[in-house]
Structure formats: structure tokens, C-alpha cells
């Protein structure tokens, strides 16, 4: 890492980012190759079920990176990031619903099934445009981004921070959950959006589409990770840490703390939205349960387990916890909540730095590199 390099290229010079991207690339490659090349009966064959499951983990990993960006580096414990994830998911879900066209149960060319069922005769205004992929993909970023912008603007301007902010983010996602449960909202109520058929013309049920989504998620995670790394290694990243540790001091240095917070918060919300958008076509449904406060707080524990303020720790935490969840709910579903609850307690009490704290080698490396800021030569380049 060097202070004089451009902010966008800086992450690529870091050892930790190189390792992360390398491992991610290898993992995605190996899974894809094993899925495509190995015969179905082989021990090394990766089924398309597994591919989709791994894709889901990668979505969660991106979501965890987004949460770590605001919690680890900005000190804002958001208990409502599930809301941004869900909004991105709903934007994607709306696109997928419109793609169904007249293949629904009721065969209506424009109205999704649940609207026909509710005797609606026309599409609500906010559903227009979602038949176009580009519009939907913009909304994937815009919907969570706007919510974060408005909410963050109000909250940070009033200097609502710490526990207060956590509690009202939780109230925010709770209120949204209640709202999306209502049929009148026009998002399918309790059942949400489901029965998707295809995405960008590819049938979602085919192996190729599933693999494609998996690879796309891998790429999104890589890009999201690099963006976050670029932010945290920039001067803005250092200002974020300054806001986290001594907000008043930062203000007296002339930084607009509330704007720094708002910027990072909105970026994080958009990343969460992208994660949600990639999640929905892979699991095939989006419903209001993604807004539940429990889900949002679970994300935080992934990050806590992996290690705050490392980003790669968030990825490790998300994958470990969700793998454990898959295993547990398969063998002994009742025990899962015990395990999750115990995880919350054990991590916060005994492992405050998370798993990343147990990997001093990697952490040290990145610090060593920052030891030697490059001379003025590069600055003029």
C-alpha cells in the first residue's frame, strides 16, 4: 500500500488483496471445472445444487463485506443491512416476475400472478420499467442506495451514532418487514415474489444458468471487495477510522464527519443490494422474511466471527456460519438456534478480534507493506 498511488490501483498492490482474489478465483474455477468436466457419479463431481448453494454463500459473503465496511471501519453497527439486501433482492425479483410474462398460472401477459389473484387490473406505477433488465439492474443499486441516503442523511446529520443508531436501524428494517407483509404494498405480501422462469433469456432451471449466476456472484464479490479495499486504503478510509475512534477530533480537523459516514454507508447499502439481487435468482424467491431483524443481526455475527475491520474476515465468517447452518439444519434443526446464540456470546466474549485475529501472519504482512511509503517519484507519475 502506498500513499501516493491512485486510490483505485492501490488495493492491487496489497498482499492481502492479491491472496484474497487469488483464492476466490481458484475456488470459482475449481468448482466450475469440476461441475462441467467430472461425470455425474464421480466423487469429485459438484452438483448444480452445490453450485447454487456455494453461490448463495458468496452472496452472503458480499453482504458481510458491506456490513464490515460500515461496522469495522466506520464504527456504525447497522442492524438493518438486511433491508438493503432485501431491497436489492426485490428489485431483481420484480424484473424476474416481469420476465415470466404470460407463462404464469393466470396467464396474464403483464400482471404477475399475485396481482391477478388480488383482482388488480393494472400494474402499480412503481412496477413499470422492471421488464427492462438495465432498468432493474440500476434499481438494484438505486433502491437501497436511496434508502441509505435518506436514512443516513437524517441520522448522521443529527449525530445519531452508537447504540442508538443500531436500534433505529433495527426499527427501520422491522418497519419495512411489516410494510412488505401487506398485500396492499404490491410486492406479493407474505409470499413475496417467486416462480421465476428466466433471467436475461436463460432458463433459471438449467445448469448453465446456475453456473453462470455462481460465477457472476464470484465476480461481484471480487469487485465489491476491491471497491471496499480501495476505500479503506484511501485517505477517506483513514478518515473513516478517525470518525470511528474519535468523532469529535475528526470534526475539529475540518472533516464533515456526517458526509464521510453517509458516503460509506450508501456505498455499503448498494453492495448489500447487489448481493440481494444475485441471491434472489439463485434461491428462487424473495419474501419479507429477509427484512427480519434476526437476519440483519445474524449478518453482524458473521462479521464478528470472521473479524472486524479486515474485510476478508467477513467473507470467512459468512461462509463458515452459513455452512454450519446448512449442516445443522440438515441434521438437527432444533440445535441451530442454540448454536447460533452460543456463537454470538462466545465470539464477543472470547474472540473479540474474530478468526482474522488468529491469523497474525496475514495481518502483519499488510502492515509491513505500509511501513515504507514510497517516495515522491511515484507521486508525479
Amino acid at each position, binding site marked *: 500500500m502506498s*500513499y*501516493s*498511488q*491512485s*486510490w*483505485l*490501483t492501490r488495493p492491487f498492490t496489497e498482499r492481502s488483496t492479491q491472496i484474497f482474489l487469488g483464492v476466490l478465483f481458484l475456488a470459482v474455477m475449481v468448482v466450475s471445472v469440476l461441475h462441467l468436466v467430472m461425470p455425474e457419479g464421480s466423487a469429485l463431481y459438484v452438483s448444480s445444487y452445490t453450485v447454487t448453494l456455494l453461490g448463495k454463500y458468496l452472496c452472503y459473503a458480499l453482504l458481510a463485506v458491506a456490513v464490515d465496511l460500515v461496522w469495522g471501519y466506520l464504527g456504525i453497527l447497522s442492524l438493518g443491512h438486511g433491508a438493503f439486501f432485501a431491497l436489492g433482492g426485490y428489485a431483481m425479483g420484480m424484473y424476474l416476475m416481469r420476465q415470466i410474462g404470460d407463462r404464469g398460472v393466470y396467464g396474464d401477459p403483464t400482471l404477475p400472478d399475485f396481482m391477478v389473484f388480488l383482482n388488480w387490473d393494472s400494474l402499480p406505477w412503481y412496477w413499470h420499467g422492471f421488464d427492462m433488465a438495465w432498468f432493474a439492474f440500476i434499481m438494484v443499486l438505486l433502491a437501497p442506495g436511496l434508502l441509505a441516503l435518506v436514512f443516513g442523511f437524517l441520522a448522521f446529520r443529527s449525530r445519531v451514532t452508537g447504540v442508538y443508531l443500531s436500534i433505529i436501524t433495527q426499527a427501520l428494517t422491522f418497519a419495512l418487514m411489516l410494510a412488505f407483509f401487506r398485500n396492499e404494498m404490491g410486492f406479493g405480501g407474505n409470499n413475496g415474489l417467486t416462480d421465476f422462469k428466466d433471467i436475461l433469456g436463460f432458463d433459471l432451471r438449467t445448469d448453465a444458468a446456475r453456473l453462470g449466476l455462481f460465477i457472476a456472484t464470484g465476480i461481484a464479490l471480487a469487485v465489491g471487495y476491491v471497491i471496499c479495499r480501495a*476505500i479503506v486504503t*484511501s*485517505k*477517506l478510509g*483513514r*478518515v473513516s*477510522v*478517525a470518525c*470511528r*475512534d*474519535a468523532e*469529535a*477530533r*475528526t*470534526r*475539529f*480537523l*475540518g*472533516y*464533515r*464527519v456526517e*458526509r*464521510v459516514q453517509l*458516503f460509506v454507508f450508501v456505498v455499503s447499502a448498494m453492495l448489500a443490494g447487489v448481493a440481494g439481487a444475485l441471491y434472489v435468482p439463485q434461491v428462487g424467491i424473495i419474501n419479507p422474511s429477509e427484512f427480519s431483524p434476526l437476519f440483519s443481526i445474524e449478518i453482524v455475527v458473521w462479521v464478528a466471527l470472521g473479524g472486524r475491520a479486515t474485510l476478508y474476515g467477513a467473507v470467512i465468517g459468512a461462509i463458515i456460519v452459513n455452512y454450519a447452518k446448512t449442516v445443522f439444519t440438515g441434521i438437527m434443526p432444533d440445535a441451530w438456534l442454540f448454536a447460533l446464540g452460543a456463537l454470538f456470546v462466545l465470539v464477543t466474549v472470547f474472540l473479540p478480534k474474530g478468526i482474522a485475529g488468529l491469523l497474525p501472519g496475514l495481518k502483519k504482512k499488510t502492515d509491513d507493506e*505500509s*511501513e515504507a*511509503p514510497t*517516495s*515522491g517519484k511515484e*507521486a*508525479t507519475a
Partner: protein
Amino acid sequence: MSIMSELTHRDRVFDFLTPTASPVDVRHGPILYLEDVTVSFDGFRAINNLNLTIDDGELRCIIGPNGAGKTTMMDIITGKTRPDVGSVWFGSRHNLLTMNEPDIASLGIGRKFQKPTVFEALTVFENLELAMATDKRVLPTLTARLTGEAKARIDEVLTTIGLTDLRHREAGILSHGQKQWLEIGMLLMQKPRLLLVDEPVAGMTEQEMERTAELLTSLAGKQSVVVVEHDMGFVRSIARTVTVLHQGSVLAEGSMDDVSNDPKVIEVYLGEGA
């Protein structure tokens, strides 16, 4: 990469986002006026009808017993606390009561806290880098690259505060005195017109104190400095004009000798000691 940096610098067209930073008007002499300022917390008057004027380039020491309102006064000047009544002007152009902390900071008022506050998770070098007077809006900060000139400036300050060897250590590991120095260094990076220094020598050794005194006196003239301090020896060593605060208002003002012979001041200090 040059195209990239062109694009990312486009944000600079949003001029309306920055406060109009007109220069400080000190043609009338004083750089800071406080007039009839009163502030109370739950009925307790921390500042009571305070009047204070600091001249441009002056080095002023403010003393007073605990609870005299010294820290609250600094809070008011830097925009952290709003007074109930009164007016606070920076030069004759800027009404500080209408501005927030970052605006006041970018106007050129720097502050060192009573308890040294540095960014402990960042290195000494990074602490100074963040303090540097530069464009502090969000996007410029995101795309900022350290220029050779800026680096030279940081090196210069590092030498001044004697922390060159520790430049890449986290500020959290510094001793109390070193943190005080780092914070003064951050003030220097800000190139402020007015420095507010709250108890700069608390926890310092004799030599460190001497160097601090040297530094502060060398600043006076170019910049205005307001020092709040308890250590009378230190105040005597640097002070030209001393203001004594008591119960939120000015009790006495003058040279150190005048003030220390003032019967009212003696009563306040002895009364407290008795």
C-alpha cells in the same frame, strides 16, 4: 490513469458544497471577540457574561480554578456548544455562532483537547496526514494522493515534534507526553490562524515542557495562540498577557505580575486552597 483522475476530480465543480471561505478580516486588530456570552447547563451557569478579545498574533494564557469555564469557552469557540446569549466573532467577518465544527476548523481555528485525542489506530504519519490543511470534502479525500510537497511538510512537522523515529508506529502506543506532542503537531499541520491549546504540558517532563514553551512562543506572531494551563511555572515562562477566569467570567487580565498581585485573584486561589 490520467483520464481516471480527471474523471474523479470532476467533483470539484460542486463548489456550492463548500462554505465560502473568505479570508479572515483582522484589519481592526483582534482576531477573536467574545461578547456577553452566557451558557448554562440545567441552571448552572458555566459561562456568565464573558467578554474576551484576542489580538492577531497574540499569545494569551488563560488560567482559573476548576469549573471556571475554560473548557466550555473553547467548546463555544469551536462550535461544539452553543451559548444561550452573546456573540462570538472570528475577525470582523465571521460569526462563529452560525457555523459548525468542520467549517470553523477549515476557517483556521485549531484545537488541542485537554485529554490528548489522537487517532490511536492510525500511525503517527497518518495522524499528521489527516490533519494537513487540504481539500477535506469526501470525494477529494477518497482520491487524494500524497504529493512530495505534502510529504515534506509532514516530515518537517515530525522533526519539530520529535517523533520522526516513531512515524510508522500506531499512535496508540505513544506515551502520554508523545501524544500531547502529536496533537500539537496535528495543529501545526492544520496551519491555523488561531490555536486553542488546552493544558498542553499535563503529564510532560521538565525538558518536554521547555520544548513546548519554546514551540508555542515561536508560533506567536505568525499565529494567535490561546493556552489554557494549570501549571503556573509554565504560564509564567511563556505568558505576555494572562486572563483569569472565575465562575464563567473574566476576573482579571494583565501581565503575569499584575495578575498575581491582584487581591481578587489571590482570594480566589487562596479561597480554593483553604
